[in-house]
């Protein structure tokens, strides 16, 4: 499905992007704030709930809560390696 801007979107995106509807929790562990911001914006635009951590230790603590449905982890991180 293609919308006005010409990007591919999921058919359910319009519904799922509504506040209160989450398609899942994504835990993003990324130290580069520019890339992180871009990814967070994109994920939230697709209707995901995003938790963002900048360091490996903080990411590990967040991951152990078991809330996330998917984790996106940078290979090189300050503190603990991805």
């Amino acid at each position, binding site marked *: 499905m293609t919308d006005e801007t010409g*990007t591919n979107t999921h058919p359910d995106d319009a519904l799922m992007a509504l506040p209160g509807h989450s398609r899942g929790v994504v835990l993003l562990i990324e130290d580069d704030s520019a890339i992180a911001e871009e990814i967070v914006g994109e994920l939230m635009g697709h209707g*995901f709930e995003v938790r963002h951590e900048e360091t490996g230790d903080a990411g590990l603590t967040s991951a152990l809560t078991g809330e*996330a449905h998917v984790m*996106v*982890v*940078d*290979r090189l991180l300050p503190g603990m*390696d*991805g």
Partner: protein
Amino acid sequence: MIEAVRQHGIRTPVLVLSALSAVDDRVTGLKAGGDDYLTKPFAMEELMARVEALLRRPDDTRSTTLRVGPLSMDLIERRVWRDGREIELLPREFRLLEYLMRRPGQVLTRSMMLEDVWQYRFIPRTNLVDVHIGKLRRKVDAPGEEPLIRSIRGTGSCCVFLTELFRTATFRLTLAALAAMAGVMVMQFGLVYTQMEAVESRRSTELLRGESRLLAQMTPEHLEYVIRKRATDDMRLVISSAGLFDASHALIAGDLHVWPRGWWRTASPIMWKSTRRKGRPTRYACWLKPCRTGTFWFWAAAFICSRSKSLCCGTQRWLRPSRPFCSPCCWAWC
């Protein structure tokens, strides 16, 4: 970091992002427990597509892992975690827990566990299962944690995870609906009961009024008759419930004081007599009526016949016992 997460028993799919595109590095990432790999720079659409692909995977693609509530078990590494806390188990305890986790919410009896975990083909009288379940429970349910293994008295041990059930919206809805229905039923019952009571009290008041009007109209003789009749009826009831025999045919002369004319010709061989003394309740006594020998034998034969199934005659209706033929009185009579 991924290794650390996996060691805690968390199987969340992981997408690894890296600036390093060397094959070795990708392999390291995947081996550490990563599920997918994406090298920088990447297109956002690809990241989204990969995240969605990871989400589409079933919760646990490794069938070697069992998960029930907060418990997770790795069958290959033979390790168990509860909320990230690793539980050290002996081999037998591990097999027992695996058996329980494969059947969550089921009631499992001791004999089932003896057969499937211990491979016993006979059921010894032993508390082996209880001892192991006790040990397992102490390890699985740390102090302050919600107990996961529950026992039902008389059946054996079972793994019940009611907490999981309570979390589902359907279950909560069903519970709420049931509670609402029960509430409505209680209210309706209350209403009906109050109405019934009101009707009953109104009726009894009316009855009392009617009866007093009737009594006022009665002559003293009629009143005496009514009282005697009621007393006689009550007496019949008492006698029949005493279990001697069906008293509806017996002559109750106790209350009449005067024996009716030709009483020896009456059908029943039993005679009732009441003794009255001042200030004491009336006593009733019964004995066999003096009669001709022939009459006595006739009744004796009828009595015996009435109790033998092969000889069902008309006398049965006369002497139908309200209890089996066991009373010493009946024996004596025979």
